[in-house]
C-alpha cells in the first residue's frame, strides 16, 4: 500500500483551510488543520508520534505569525519542509521567508497545479532530509561502537596504556585491540587499513574480529600476520580484482603487534613486530628517544614475501613505547609541529585537543598509543617525555628561522601554559646551539647531521634539550658573566655565553659537540 503523505495546513481563515483540504484530499494527501501559529506548534510538538511530511502556513496570524512558525520548525524539526502561502506580494517578505527556512512561497489563492507541485517538492525535501538524518544517526551509533571496540582496554593489565583515537570521518580505518594471552603475557595490536571511510572501518573491524578469534584459538601472532598477507593477496584482492577488473591490490593493512611479557614487579619485556606503520619509538626516562623499527616497512597485502622485523627490549622504570598511525605525522606536518609534540598534546591535553580546529578535519585517521610501567610502581619525578626529535642535514643552516618556528609551535602545543618570555629564552638558546652545530659540528655539509631532542618533565616543570652533532667540537671559552670589552674588537663566544646565562643548566661535552640544556618552566 502506498504511503499517504500528511500535510499540516495553518491559516486563521477557515475557508482557506477547507479549500486546501479539498484540493489536497483529491490527490490522496491526508491533511490536518491549525487555525493559529500556536495551535500548529502544539500539533507539531507531538511530531515524533504523529509525523507530518509538509507544513503550509499563512503569514499574518494573530498570535505567532507564519515566519515565526517556519523558524520554529527549522529549529525544532529541521527535516520538516515548510511552505509559506500569503497574499503579501512584497519581495522583502519573500526573501525573509526563504531566509527563515521555508522551501517554497505560494501566493493566495494558489493554482491547483502550483500547490501540488510545491507540496510534492516539499515532501521530497522532507524525505531526503529524514533519510540523511537517519544515516547520520546510524553512523554516530557505529562511531560509538567502533570507539568502544578501540578504547576497550582490559582493566587488570599490569602496565599502563594511554591512547588517543580519532577517525577522520565518523568511521575510521584504524583499530586497536588488547588481548591477554596469559597472566604474564598481553598482546597489543594497532591496525591501520588503507583509506578512512566506511569501507576502511568495515575492513579494520573485520580483521580485528579474525585476529581476536585466531588469538583465542592459540595462533601465533607471526602466523596470523602471514595469514592476513596471504588472505589479502590471494582471496580478497583476487576476487575484487576479478569482479571489478581492478589491480590485485585493493586493500592493504598496516599492523604493529607488541607482546608484553610481565616478568615481575617492574620487569617487562616487549617484543615488537611492525609491518607498514611508522617506526615504533622507545623513549628512555631521560627523554632520549630511540627508533626501534625501520621506517618504510611494507604493509600487508602488497607482496608475497614478508620482511617482518622483530625487536625485543626491556621496558624498565620510566621508559615507554610510543606507536602511532601515520595520521599523527600528517596532522603534525599540517599543524607545523613535531609529531612528538602532537602526540604529547593529544595524550595529555585531550579535552583541549578535541576542541581544537585541526581535529575538526584531520588529514587522516589518528591513533596513538603509549605503553609504560605504572608510575605507582616507582618514583616518576625524573621521567622526561619527548616533545620533539629532529635530525637536520648540516647544509640547512639558512633554514634556521623555519626550523625555529617548528620548535616554537611544538613547545607551545605541548606546554600551553609556558610564558612567552621564557619560551623566547629557550628558543634563543636552541638557536645558538643549532647554529653552532650547523657551522662547526657539520661544517655546513649535507652529509653530516645533527640531532635535537626536547623532552618535558611534567612533575617538576623542567624542559630538557639535547643537541648532538657528528663533529669533533671546537675550542671555545665562555664565563658565567658576559663581559664586553669596549676597547677591544675581540670578545668571548657571545652565543654560548648567552646560553650559559639564560639556561638553568648548561652542560657541554666533547668540546660542544654534545650539549644539554635544562630550563625550569
Amino acid at each position, binding site marked *: 500500500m502506498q504511503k499517504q503523505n500528511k500535510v499540516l495546513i495553518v491559516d486563521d481563515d477557515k475557508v482557506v483551510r477547507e479549500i486546501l483540504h479539498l484540493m489536497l484530499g483529491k490527490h490522496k494527501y491526508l491533511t490536518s488543520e491549525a487555525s493559529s501559529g500556536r495551535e500548529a506548534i502544539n500539533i507539531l510538538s507531538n511530531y515524533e508520534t504523529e509525523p507530518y511530511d509538509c507544513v503550509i502556513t499563512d503569514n499574518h496570524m494573530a498570535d505567532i505569525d507564519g515566519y515565526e512558525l517556519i523558524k520554529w520548525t527549522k529549529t525544532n524539526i529541521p527535516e520538516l519542509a515548510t511552505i509559506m502561502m500569503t497574499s503579501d506580494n512584497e519581495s522583502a517578505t519573500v526573501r525573509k521567508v526563504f531566509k527563515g527556512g521555508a522551501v517554497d512561497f505560494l501566493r493566495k489563492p494558489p493554482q491547483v497545479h502550483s500547490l501540488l507541485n510545491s507540496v510534492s517538492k516539499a515532501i521530497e525535501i522532507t524525505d531526503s532530509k529524514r533519510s540523511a538524518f537517519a544515516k547520520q544517526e546510524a553512523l554516530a551509533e557505529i562511531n560509538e561502537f567502533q570507539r568502544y571496540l578501540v578504547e576497550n582496554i582490559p582493566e587488570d593489565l599490569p602496565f599502563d596504556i594511554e591512547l588517543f583515537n580519532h577517525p577522520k570521518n565518523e568511521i575510521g580505518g584504524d583499530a586497536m585491540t588488547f588481548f591477554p594471552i596469559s597472566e604474564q603475557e598481553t598482546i597489543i595490536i594497532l591496525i591501520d587499513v588503507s583509506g578512512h571511510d566506511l569501507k576502511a572501518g568495515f575492513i579494520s573491524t573485520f580483521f580485528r574480529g579474525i585476529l581476536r578469534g585466531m588469538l583465542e584459538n592459540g595462533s601465533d601472532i607471526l602466523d596470523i600476520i602471514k595469514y592476513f598477507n596471504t588472505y589479502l593477496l590471494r582471496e580478497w584482492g583476487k576476487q575484487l580484482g576479478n569482479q571489478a577488473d581492478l589491480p590485485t591490490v585493493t586493500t592493504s593493512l598496516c599492523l604493529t603487534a607488541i607482546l608484553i611479557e610481565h616478568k615481575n614487579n617492574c620487569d617487562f619485556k616487549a617484543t615488537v613486530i611492525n609491518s607498514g606503520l611508522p617506526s615504533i619509538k622507545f623513549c628512555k626516562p631521560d627523554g632520549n628517544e630511540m627508533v626501534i623499527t625501520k621506517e618504510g616497512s611494507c604493509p600487508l597485502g602488497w607482496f608475497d614475501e614478508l620482511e617482518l622485523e622483530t625487536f625485543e627490549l626491556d621496558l624498565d622504570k620510566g621508559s615507554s613505547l610510543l606507536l602511532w598511525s601515520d595520521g599523527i605525522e600528517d596532522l603534525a606536518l599540517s599543524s607545523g609541529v613535531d609529531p612528538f609534540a602532537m602526540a604529547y598534546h593529544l595524550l595529555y591535553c585531550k579535552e583541549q585537543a578535541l576542541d581544537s580546529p585541526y581535529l575538526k578535519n584531520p588529514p587522516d585517521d589518528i591513533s596513538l598509543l603509549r605503553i609504560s610501567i605504572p608510575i605507582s610502581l616507582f618514583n616518576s619525578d625524573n621521567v622526561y617525555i619527548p616533545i620533539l626529535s629532529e635530525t637536520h642535514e648540516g647544509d640547512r643552516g639558512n633554514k634556521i628561522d623555519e626550523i625555529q618556528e617548528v620548535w616554537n609551535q611544538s613547545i607551545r602545543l605541548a606546554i600551553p601554559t609556558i610564558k612567552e*618570555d621564557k619560551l*623566547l629564552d629557550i628558543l*634563543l638558546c636552541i*638557536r*645558538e646551539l643549532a647554529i653552532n652545530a650547523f657551522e662547526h659540528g657539520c661544517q655546513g655539509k649535507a652529509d653530516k647531521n645533527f640531532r635535537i631532542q626536547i623532552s618535558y618533565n611534567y612533575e617538576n616543570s623542567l624542559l630538557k634539550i639535547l643537541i648532538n652533532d657528528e663533529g669533533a667540537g671546537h675550542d671555545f671559552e665562555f664565563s658565567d658573566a658576559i663581559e*664586553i670589552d*669596549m676597547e677591544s674588537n675581540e670578545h668571548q663566544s*657571545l652565543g654560548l655565553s648567552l646560553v650559559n646565562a639564560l639556561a638553568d643548566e648548561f652542560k657541554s661535552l666533547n668540546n660542544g659537540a654534545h650539549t644539554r640544556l635544562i630550563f625550569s618552566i
Partner: protein
Amino acid sequence: MELQFDSEKKSLSLFFQGDLSSNNVIEKIEPIEDTLKRIRGMSEKWCSLKINLIQTKLIDSTGLNLIISLIKFAKSLDAEIEILVSSIHVDRVLKKINFLGKEIKVRKVGNPH
C-alpha cells in the same frame, strides 16, 4: 631599520623592526651598512643614541653583535646610549651583559601590541 635625528636635542634614534636574529641581520645587511655609514657621517651632530627595540621580540648573538658595534661607536664619540625594549626576553638578555667601561641605559616600556 629607521633612522631619525632630533637636531634640537642632538639625539639620534635608531628604530629596529622585527627580530634581531642572524638571518634578519644577514638578509638586511646592505641597508644596515648604509644606515651605519650615515650614522658615522653624522658623528659631529649628535651626542645621544637611542636604540629602539620595542618591536623586537627575540635577539640572538648576531643581533647582539650589531648592537654592540653601535654601542662601541657611540662610546668612541662619548655619546649617551639608551636602549628601549618591550620584550621581557630582550630586556633580560641585555641586562645579562656587562658593557665594561660604559653605562648603558636599558629601559623597558609597555608592549606596543
